[in-house]
């Protein structure tokens, strides 16, 4: 974090601490407490919505579980604040796990659907289980007592402020660590993430449980703030408000969560005052019309583009004067606001501010951590996490059959890869080479057959666990984490070297720093090895195609593999680049890493492979040294068609 950022953070905290002396009115203090509590929840929700990219419609219910854990423990057992708050975090995290473990197994809108159902059920359960929760009557709780001192409303403001600052700190540390990098990676390219040993499913669940724990903390604090809880508070409307806050404030920013909390707490107050609403709506309409006229005059926008927002804001202002009461239309206004934000402010208010600053002061905006580490030759290589114990064959695939509908992409193929060799896998397009790669790395589950790698059966294992065993790969159609820098891509490959826990991440323990520094040095060295040292802080999607392929190799090597699968590494490379690539592959082999190479450039295959397997229509038609394969009639027939002898 830069000095300017630290100073502004300290100033913000001091200002927040002074607020109760500026507005001593208990009503305002209570509003600020609620803002603080909502901000805590939103920081957690943003991990799921902003970073992992899943939609949770159950955060109001999780908030409610946190609130009721405190309420019930206090009501039934008279438990103390210092006990109930940790309990509410733990219980809510547990519920989060129960939800996330099944719901995140499948891609698609399942989490949204399941959490929506969960929200309803929790409300029913709180209402029905009267013996635990006192049902619809609700629970009364007093503010905590410390050593016979009864905490007042203003004191409680400071308790919440401390909790908020602590949450901000923890969330910031987590998101800037290898965990946050894993969240971003799995959102960017799930398939690559899995193949780099970062389990998409595992980290999505992790993110959701973390988010639930934070919601639990917020819920627990809310109980002591309100001093009365009842089931109907934690309804669907509250969930919608939370989501509105996250997207309106701005996803993937901590300040956006705080801003979002301020908006949704103030919103009901604005919407209860029709006069105020009319003034604001008229103001928005005037600004929109003025901006549209300006944009039209300077030809930045077309009439078609500005028509909808202009009409909508005018309609909003006019309807403000036609309505005599606004609370009845509250939900319509929430809905319209969400539509507006989704379409016109996809990055929220903070994102909007950021884009303005970027326009005039681009040097102020850092989208990525700039890593200026210099690599060297000594830190490129490392020993595999699982030492190679196999003798002779490192990998043996027996009778692999892979079926897509009626088509057998692989039909009883056997493949033995000798330890320390470069093994070529060639064949015409559609012969099953890439399918074989996907079977070996666990992306496809073969219909039949067995794979033994390093004396372990890996048939049917998940891609991330196979990667953990020491098989790394590159992709035929490049699968980089496009929105991350080159060095961050390599750091995702180095994820397995980060062995420290959440506690280490939060407190930046020596162990955490040591592993981080080692990883940075290693990543820089790997980039230097593939010749991308100058482009370390460039976003991967901006690299030219050939460099992207090299970056994939660096990322794969970061996994410390004992077997490296290269899927058409020379595609898109120029002739001098291909020469360098071949030297690179030889160096990789020189360091004891076995290589499987799929390639269409025959000169590459023939000059560096020890053994070549030829596939055609899912069958193995030949195998042997490059020279043997080259003179094999079946191979010539497969490539050129017809009979060579004719």
């Amino acid at each position: 974090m830069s000095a300017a950022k630290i100073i502004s953070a300290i100033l913000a905290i001091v200002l927040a601490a002074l607020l109760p002396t500026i507005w001593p009115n208990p009503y305002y203090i209570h509003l600020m407490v609620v803002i603080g509590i909502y901000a805590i929840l939103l920081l957690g929700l943003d991990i799921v919505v902003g970073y992992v990219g899943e939609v949770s419609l159950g955060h109001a219910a999780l908030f409610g579980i946190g609130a009721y854990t405190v309420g019930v423990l206090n009501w039934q057992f008279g438990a103390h604040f210092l006990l109930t708050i940790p309990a509410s975090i733990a219980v809510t995290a547990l519920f989060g796990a129960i939800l996330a473990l099944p719901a995140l197994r499948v891609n698609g809108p399942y989490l949204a659907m399941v959490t929506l159902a969960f929200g309803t059920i929790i409300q029913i359960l709180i209402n029905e289980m009267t013996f635990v929760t006192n049902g619809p009557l609700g629970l009364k709780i007093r503010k905590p007592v410390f050593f016979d001192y009864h905490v007042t409303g203003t004191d409680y403001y400071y308790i919440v402020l401390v909790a908020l600052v602590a949450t901000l700190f923890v969330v910031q540390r987590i998101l800037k660590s290898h965990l946050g990098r894993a969240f971003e990676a799995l959102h960017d390219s799930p398939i690559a993430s899995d193949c780099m040993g970062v389990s998409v499913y595992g980290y999505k669940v992790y993110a959701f449980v973390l988010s639930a724990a934070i919601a639990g903390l917020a819920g627990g604090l809310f109980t002591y703030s309100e001093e009365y809880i009842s089931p109907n508070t934690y309804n669907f409307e509250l969930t919608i408000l939370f989501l509105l806050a996250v997207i309106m404030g701005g996803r993937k920013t901590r300040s956006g969560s705080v801003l979002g909390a301020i908006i949704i707490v103030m919103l009901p107050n604005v919407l209860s005052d029709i006069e105020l609403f009319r003034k604001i709506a008229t103001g928005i309409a005037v600004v929109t019309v003025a901006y549209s006229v300006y944009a039209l005059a300077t030809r930045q926008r077309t009439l078609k583009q500005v028509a909808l927002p202009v009409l909508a804001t005018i309609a909003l202002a006019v309807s403000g004067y036609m309505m005599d009461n606004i609370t009845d239309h509250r939900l319509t206004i929430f809905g319209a606001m969400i539509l507006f934000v989704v379409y016109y402010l996809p990055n929220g208010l903070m994102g909007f501010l950021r884009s303005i600053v970027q326009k005039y002061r681009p040097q102020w905006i850092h989208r990525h951590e700039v890593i200026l580490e210099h690599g060297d030759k000594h830190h490129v290589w490392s020993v595999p996490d699982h030492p190679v114990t196999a003798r002779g064959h490192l990998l043996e695939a027996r009778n692999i059959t892979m079926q897509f509908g009626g088509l057998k992409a692989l039909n009883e193929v056997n493949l033995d890869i000798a330890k320390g060799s470069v093994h070529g896998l060639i064949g015409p397009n559609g012969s099953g080479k890439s399918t074989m790669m996907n079977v070996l790395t666990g992306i496809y589950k073969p219909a039949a057959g067995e794979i033994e790698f390093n004396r372990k059966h890996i048939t049917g294992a998940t891609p991330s666990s196979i990667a953990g065993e020491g098989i790394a790969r590159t992709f035929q159609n490049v699968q980089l984490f496009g929105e991350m820098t080159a060095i961050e891509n390599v750091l995702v490959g180095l994820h397995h070297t980060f062995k420290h826990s959440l506690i280490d991440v939060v407190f930046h323990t020596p162990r955490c720093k040591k592993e981080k520094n080692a990883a940075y040095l290693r990543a820089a060295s790997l980039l230097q090895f593939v010749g991308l040292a100058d482009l370390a802080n460039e976003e991967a999607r901006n690299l030219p195609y050939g460099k992207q392929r090299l970056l994939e190799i660096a990322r794969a090597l970061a996994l410390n593999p004992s077997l490296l699968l290269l899927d058409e590494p020379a595609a898109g490379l120029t002739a001098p680049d291909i020469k360098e690539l071949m030297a690179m592959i030889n160096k990789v082999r020189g360091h004891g890493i076995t290589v499987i190479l799929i390639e269409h450039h025959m000169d590459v295959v023939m000059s560096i492979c020890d053994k070549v397997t030829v596939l055609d229509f899912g069958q193995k038609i030949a195998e042997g040294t490059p020279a043997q394969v080259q003179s094999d009639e079946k191979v010539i027939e497969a490539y050129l068609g017809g009979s060579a002898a004719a």
Partner: protein
Amino acid sequence: MEIFAQLILSGIALGMIYGLIAFGYQLTFATSGTLNFGQGEALMLGAMVGLTLVGHMNYWLMIPLVLVFGALQGVLVERLGVLPALKTKSEFGWIMTTISLAIIFKNVAENVWGHDDVTFPSPLPTAPLQFFGLRVLPMEILVVAGALAVMLAVEIFNRKSIYGKAVVATSNDRDAAGLMGINTGMVITFSYALSSMTAAFAGVLVAPLTLTGATMGAVLGLKAFAVAIIGGLNSGMGVIVGGLILGIAETTTGYYISTGYKDVPGLLLLLLVLAIKPAGMFGKSVIKKV
């Protein structure tokens, strides 16, 4: 035993309604990979419009008008909520927009038709029929028959007509279908129209059996989610069986345990199915090609 049989019979009628709404989710999920989180509100609007129309005409005449209204409502949702999100390929986008349209529809309905639930006049005699000592309402038979008829009609349309082929092609591979000259945008709009139409129809079928009001849709839409997941989002058979399982689970839990808990087994079942067979009981798990 007789009570149990009776509970199963009532569960069937309820389950078919859930199944019909879930069928609506499948229609749009197949063509566009999206679904309308406001399906329950589409049902509610159908029922409310039907209720207004029934004051002026006969129940059977009202149905085609409600179907037309449903289709238009579906087109509106697709144009306002789904189309822009599909362009930006944002899952978050369409989930949020269909939800926000849903709460707007609900709020507007509250302001137009009021907050109170009302009864919908039944077009059929309300006296139950007796079969082997079991009581069945004529309206329940209509619900089952109507739901099956709609699903059958859509299935025949998809299999026999050239337009149906376009829908099936789009479901299989949207890009390839587009390259073959099928206007896939049109197909998606059509699937939304059809989906909301079935929801509106489900609304006028279920309305005479329950109370009608602005909040009737939310719970039904939610139950249908459970059905769609339990049965599988891509299986026609799945929604019927899933609907029946949920309907029967609900009536039996309501009787043997407590009406308050009747929604709980549905969610437990939902989580269980996701844990054991994520594609749903009848769903095919698709191998995602890399």
